[in-house]
């Protein structure tokens, strides 16, 4: 941080400091000074703000996308090369890091902002092309290749013939509220968050609002839990507020465990202060003096940034004792989880924080009345909390204006699978799934057919093509046997086998069940075993097996119903959903597996048959040599054949054959 920064005192008249904060401390920092009038001081503040918001800058600035997705795509190598280039060519620039902006497909992303010009955004910037890109921008002739667009900003000169970044098809239909700062700001730079209006909401409620009125505001906004359950957040807060206790706890649930979900990780990596502000407001609203962020240890970068953000907040007195002289005190602690899926369930999460094994317990009593260490406890998901600051700042009417009748605001989805653009998207509630897939996601690559969209992870279901026009909304999705879930959205094209998809999720659930109640522990295992039988090698069949497969599909449905109605926690109650939903829409695929012993998507390996076309085979022996199980026989220069019983269906022969003589069906 610079010597003269946002937190420095403007002059001796100013009596604000982080040690002696007054109720107006935050607005004084960004809009002040408020305690005295002095033009010089005001200008000093304004200068600082325009420095931070890049209205005035002395040298070019480079923003490197350093979220986990960017680093996975090689951003660190790019960064290393970038630093080399700067050193070698003696270029005077500043490098800042940002989180993920959402467009993971095009990572590593690199933005360059020249003084007085708009910020340019490049995709796929590797150690090979970074030098060229950097030089081209510095020289005023931006390289067109890899250029995604420019971020228009007031007072800055636009680049000619460069499209707007947010006009990219991936962004154009998004409504970026929660993700506003992600990929734009330096995630742990507190100045930057403040300069953009951060923590004003927190200051506002501390100064002016009663706890109950904060709860009211949130209740009126009709914000619902973004973790999947969709319970009205304000209502939940009121349960805890109205339960008398000497100690209450606020917990942020960042134990994101659904396969295909990475919203929470990206949010924390990209904008930790927004989450913390939401958490602080929530703690105030329910009267909690201790807050926890329960986050899986598998998210090291998110944890690192949270730790830094929290220590900055402590340093400047935003958390601690008597915050901003309001009488409200708050401590925030990070609790790392071991990555058990079930710890996303409220009561299991509480047990885990208490140091016990993460196992759910029977509710009621609900955590809002009896939770962590038997005290009233509220647990909110990351995205839910990230919505709070803007609702407080802009009012509930603003929030309610977006969305559908029952689901307000926006929803963040982690878009993955067979799409042209994957990544993190935020859309208004009520956006049709079709739009998310074909507009935002850029459609299915290689002109293949859309088959299904898996939404809501292991608790959710599959949306088939005939329901593509369904709108994103808690209630709507349920009508087609899916659910909102936490935001995983996996798109599958016609290469996917739906029995295999169901098998994947059942396997996940039976491994991640806590093992406490019978239906979830034993039932999901039995369901998986039935699916395994359906997709197993027909040559190992005994006469009984075919009969069992037949009854299997009936048993699956029965078991699913019983697991749903008798399981202890939400995890078990929704565990059969992937099977129920695929059975509902793709029953013919199950029947094909059971009756014809075929998988037309060619995914279920054991059901495949490999055959050599005698007319095409030249007897080159290549296939026989690569076959690991000696299943291919034949003399040199005469057609080979495959012994089906020995074939392990590895596909090596198919790859090896140069005559295209091997077919799979």
């Amino acid at each position, binding site marked *: 941080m610079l010597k003269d920064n946002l937190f420095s005192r403007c002059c001796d008249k100013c009596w604000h400091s982080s040690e002696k904060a007054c109720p107006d401390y935050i607005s004084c920092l960004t809009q002040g000074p408020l305690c005295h009038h002095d033009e010089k001081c005001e200008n000093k503040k304004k200068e600082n703000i325009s420095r931070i918001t890049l209205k005035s800058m002395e040298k070019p600035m480079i923003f490197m996308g350093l979220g986990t997705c960017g680093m996975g795509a090689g951003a660190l190598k790019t960064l290393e090369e970038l630093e080399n280039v700067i050193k070698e060519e003696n270029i005077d620039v500043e490098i800042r890091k940002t989180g993920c902006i959402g467009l993971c497909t095009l990572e590593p992303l690199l933005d360059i902002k020249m003084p007085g010009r708009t910020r340019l955004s490049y995709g796929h910037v590797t150690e090979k092309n970074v030098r060229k890109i950097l030089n081209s921008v510095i020289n005023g002739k931006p390289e067109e290749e890899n250029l995604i667009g420019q971020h228009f900003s007031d007072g800055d000169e636009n680049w000619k013939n460069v499209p707007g970044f947010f006009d990219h098809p991936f962004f154009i239909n998004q409504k970026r509220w929660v993700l506003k700062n992600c990929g734009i700001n330096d995630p742990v730079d507190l100045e930057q968050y403040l300069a953009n209006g951060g923590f004003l909401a927190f200051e506002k409620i501390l100064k002016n609002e009663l706890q109950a009125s904060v709860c009211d505001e949130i209740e009126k906004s009709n914000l619902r839990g973004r973790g999947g359950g969709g319970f009205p957040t304000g209502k939940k807060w009121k349960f805890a507020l109205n339960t008398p206790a000497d100690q209450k706890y606020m917990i942020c649930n960042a134990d994101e465990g659904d396969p295909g979900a990475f919203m929470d990780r990206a949010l924390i990596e990209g904008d930790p202060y927004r989450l913390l502000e939401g958490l602080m407001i929530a703690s105030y609203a329910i009267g909690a003096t201790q807050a926890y962020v329960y986050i899986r240890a598998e998210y090291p970068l998110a944890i690192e940034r949270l730790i830094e953000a929290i220590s900055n907040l402590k340093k400047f007195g935003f958390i601690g004792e008597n915050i901003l002289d309001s009488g409200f005190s708050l401590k925030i602690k990070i609790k790392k989880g071991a990555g058990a899926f079930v710890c996303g369930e409220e009561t299991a999460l509480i047990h885990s924080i208490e140091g016990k*094994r993460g196992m759910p317990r*029977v509710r009621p009593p609900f955590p809002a009345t009896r939770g962590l260490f038997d005290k009233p406890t509220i647990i909110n998901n990351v995205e839910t909390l990230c919505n709070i600051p803007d609702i407080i700042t802009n009012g509930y009417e603003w929030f309610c204006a977006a969305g559908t009748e029952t689901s307000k605001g926006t929803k963040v989805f982690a878009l993955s699978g067979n799409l042209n653009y994957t990544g993190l998207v935020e859309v208004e509630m009520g956006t049709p799934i079709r739009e998310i897939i074909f507009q935002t996601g850029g459609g299915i690559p290689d002109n293949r057919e859309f088959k299904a969209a898996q939404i809501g992870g292991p608790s959710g279901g599959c949306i088939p093509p005939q329901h593509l026009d369904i709108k994103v909304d808690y209630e709507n999705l349920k009508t087609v046997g899916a659910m909102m879930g936490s935001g995983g959205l996996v798109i599958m094209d016609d290469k996917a086998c739906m029995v295999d998809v169901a098998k994947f999720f059942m396997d996940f659930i*039976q491994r*991640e069940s806590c*093992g406490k109640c019978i239906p979830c522990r*034993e*039932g999901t295992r039995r369901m998986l075993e039935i699916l395994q039988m359906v997709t197993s090698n027909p040559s190992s069949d005994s006469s009984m097996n075919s009969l069992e497969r037949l009854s299997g599909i009936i048993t699956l449905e029965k078991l699913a119903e019983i697991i749903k*109605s008798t399981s*202890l926690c939400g995890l078990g109650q929704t565990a059969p959903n992937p099977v129920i939903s695929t059975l509902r829409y793709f029953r013919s695929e199950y029947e094909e597996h059971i009756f014809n012993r075929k998988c037309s998507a060619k995914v279920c390996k054991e059901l495949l048959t490999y055959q050599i076309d005698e007319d095409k085979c030249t007897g080159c022996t290549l296939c026989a040599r690569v076959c690991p199980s000696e299943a291919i026989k034949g003399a040199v220069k005469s057609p080979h054949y495959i012994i089906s019983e020995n074939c392990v269906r590895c596909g090596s022969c198919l790859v090896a054959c140069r005559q295209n003589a091997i077919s799979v069906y």
Partner: protein
Amino acid sequence: MLELIVNDKPVKADKGEMLLSVLRRQGIDIPTLCHVEGLTPTGACRLCVVEVEGQSGLVPSCACQVYNGMKVKTHTNRLIEARRTLLELIMSSHPDDCLYCQRRDTCELLELASKLGIKERRYKSVRSNPSLDISSPSIVRDPSKCILCGRCVRVCEEIQGVGAIDFIGRGSDCSVGTAFNEGLNTSSCVNCGQCITACPVGALTEARHINRVLNAMSNPELTIVVQHAPAVSVTLGEMYNLPSAADVQGVMIAGLRKAGFDFVFDTGFSADLTIMEEASELVSRISNGGVLPMMTSCSPAWVKFVEQYYPEMIPSLSTCKSPMQMLGAITKSWWAEKNKLDKSKIFSVAVMPCTAKKFEASRPEMGIGIPDIDAVLTTRELYDLFNIKGVKPFELKPMNNDNPFGQRSTAGKLFGATGGVMEAAIRTAHFLITGENMKNPVITELRDMTGIKEARVKIGELEIGVAVASGLSNARKLLDEIKMGRKDIHFIEIMSCPGGCIGGGGQPYGTDFESVRNRMSLLYKIDKEETVKYSHENQSISELYRDFLGKPLSGKSHTLLHTEYMNRVVMK
């Protein structure tokens, strides 16, 4: 008072009650596998599910509080199907070898399967076959039979405050195990065996000593002696489906003789001996400024508990061996000499309501050169031994114990119940201090099932504070108070198992609050009806001191009847 509608009939209930107990009171049979009265309901087995109007899912009645106007259905087809399926699911991953199972006659799973009419195998599964844990001297764990109801985990944690076992692993790999899944012997397990009586299936059993006994019996060189603990005779009748309130000592002795034991002694005798030593020790500690409070040492699980968790309080433990060990030591010394027997040719068996006694007998300090006790049978094992040997005790003529160790005072018999040692000790301490017996030997404050009981007792001029606890989590509470600085308690009796030895881990499967209370009242009845109520009035005890030991706390006593303890480091 609340009113709910159960199966279309109005039913009254109290506020705060759980639905399951209300239904059971109505005589409605609801199956459960994980429920234990008095422990936190976990709702794990889901067999007790019922339909509650307004709820889409099924509700576990064990963990559901009643409310006014609640409408409940208990046996609809949907529920029957759900319960049967759940049971079938457990059965599908449970071993089929019921023929060879310890619990074939007492298995709750088997009982439920027949009750719910399961006759067909609808679900097949691939079973994993985890290995037996035979590392513990007292308890054998067979994880393959475990149905993960969690009763053992809760008993260990909530009743005993030990928590040696917990669930480990996720999903279908979930199992019950110790820290790092090591053997039970290296864990914090105190061998009390409460988990065994709680287990509904054959996943937990005692380390059996029947074969040791049978082998010894077939060796003509050996003299086989057996002692039986006070709690056994008031319990054994239950296993023969006798109404629970019956003392069967006479026929049991006859059965023991018929089964092949050469001499039958009563641990009640050495309980009197323990009292002589322990009361003297207490009097000596009080008059010589020794470490107070003094704590009893007859419950071996409790002793291990102190060694593990409160090593700094080891000086408070009485140095007296337990009655079982005292009798073992006297048998292989004085009695052997008297009868001109080679002590190495004596095989000493103890029938105990306890599994920790197996561990105690194996402690190296319990014997000089050779162990004082060679085999320990639980009450359950005695029943099995009788069956193996074809002994039907109730067809035999009652007999008496063999002397000199066949006589006991009722004070010695009271050892079987929580508070009994304390009562017996105070009776004798009173005599030792004042020279006369108490006017009323019964101390009512110490006579019930309460977890922690306290009393102020006047002995002549002296007033002492005494406390009695059963269940180790209660002991923990008491000990923590002492550590925090309580000074008004001078003598503490701890029994590891709830209710004392009559609720021990070697007692019949499914021992519950009610059965323990019945056994307890039987002991009080004996105390009321018999005439010798004071340990120091036991004639054989006087004879033993006169002929052999000299006086309490003598040098010989110290060698044979007293012991020492050690700081144990275990995974906590």
